[in-house]
């Protein structure tokens, strides 16, 4: 196929696809014109039934809590997959981080990056905790807050040295936190099965609408997800950094 034939094939196909897209989209209902029975019903019942002002959280952590649990384990499995792929191979040996080695090639962190990183660290961690804790009240929740928390670890790495990051996140603790986060979700579900008769039943008192201790099990599950996600992303970050900065292939493949 010559380049000009290829170009014309693409142009004709793209024009056809574009035409179909415009035709299809012109038939879409207008923005905000919603007729989903299930969604309208949830909008009605979520606040009185579950005392959660964020209906999205009521769906993801209560009415369809099982879906979210499986999603959490998708992330869990993905992080474990990365950890397994990036494990220490037999032909690799660990050496001191490049930043400490003699004749270091990595330029030192600039003072500007260091100051901004350390200034942001506190607010970022606080904001992450806020997003996790208020998941049932306002947009946010364990997943988003967890990733925000994990960027705290990234800031430590950016503003300090890799060694500092290793000191503030002991590997065993991070592994434990990730597993605890993932496991607690299932434990909350099983506890609901025992005391209320169905898996992930909302067995806790619902509390006053709009306050932090409300919506029953939702804040607990959010906390579990936040722990799992924050630890998972920190693990991902440190696995990659271990690969880049500490591990070296000796070239001997056994």
């Amino acid at each position, binding site marked *: 196929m010559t380049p000009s034939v290829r170009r014309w094939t693409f142009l004709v196909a793209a024009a056809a696809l574009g035409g179909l897209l415009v035709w299809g989209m012109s038939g879409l209902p207008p923005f905000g014109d919603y007729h989903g029975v299930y969604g309208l019903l949830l909008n009605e019942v979520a606040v009185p039934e579950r005392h959660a002002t964020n209906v999205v959280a009521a769906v993801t952590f209560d009415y369809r809590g099982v879906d979210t649990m499986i999603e959490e384990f998708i992330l869990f499995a993905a992080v474990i997959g990365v950890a397994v792929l990036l494990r220490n191979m037999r032909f690799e040996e660990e050496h001191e981080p490049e930043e400490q080695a003699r004749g270091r090639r990595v330029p030192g962190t600039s003072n500007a990056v260091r100051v901004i990183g350390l200034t942001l660290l506190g607010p970022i961690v606080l904001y992450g905790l806020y997003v996790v804790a208020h998941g049932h009240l306002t947009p946010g929740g364990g997943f*988003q807050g967890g990733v925000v928390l994990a960027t705290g670890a*990234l800031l430590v790495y950016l503003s300090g040295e890799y060694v500092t990051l290793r000191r503030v996140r002991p590997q065993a603790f991070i592994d434990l936190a990730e597993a605890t986060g993932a496991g607690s979700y299932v434990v909350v579900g099983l506890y609901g099965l025992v005391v209320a008769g169905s898996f992930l039943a909302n067995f806790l008192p619902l509390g006053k609408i709009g306050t932090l201790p409300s919506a029953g099990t939702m804040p607990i599950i959010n906390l579990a997800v936040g722990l799992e996600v924050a630890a998972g992303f920190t693990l991902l970050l440190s696995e*990659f*950094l271990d690969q*880049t900065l500490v591990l070296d292939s000796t070239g001997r493949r056994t």
Partner: protein
Amino acid sequence: MTTVLLVVVLLMVAAGGTAVVLTRDPLNQAMIASFYGLVLGLLFLLMQAPDVGLSQITVGAVALPLMILLALAKVRRDSR
């Protein structure tokens, strides 16, 4: 007002997506993909899906470019 904002952000999404595709250097591409993720998050926020917007920003603007950057650092170090 919202319509104007929506049109502006949609144009930014179109420009961002095109820029991601047209950038050939993976390092620059990761940076532009991060910006594109942020703009998509804005779009979701304007369309009244703040929950999705937050997820989009954390994953699209932070996590994904970070993984690409770390993988690039690893690849470049090995080829040195």
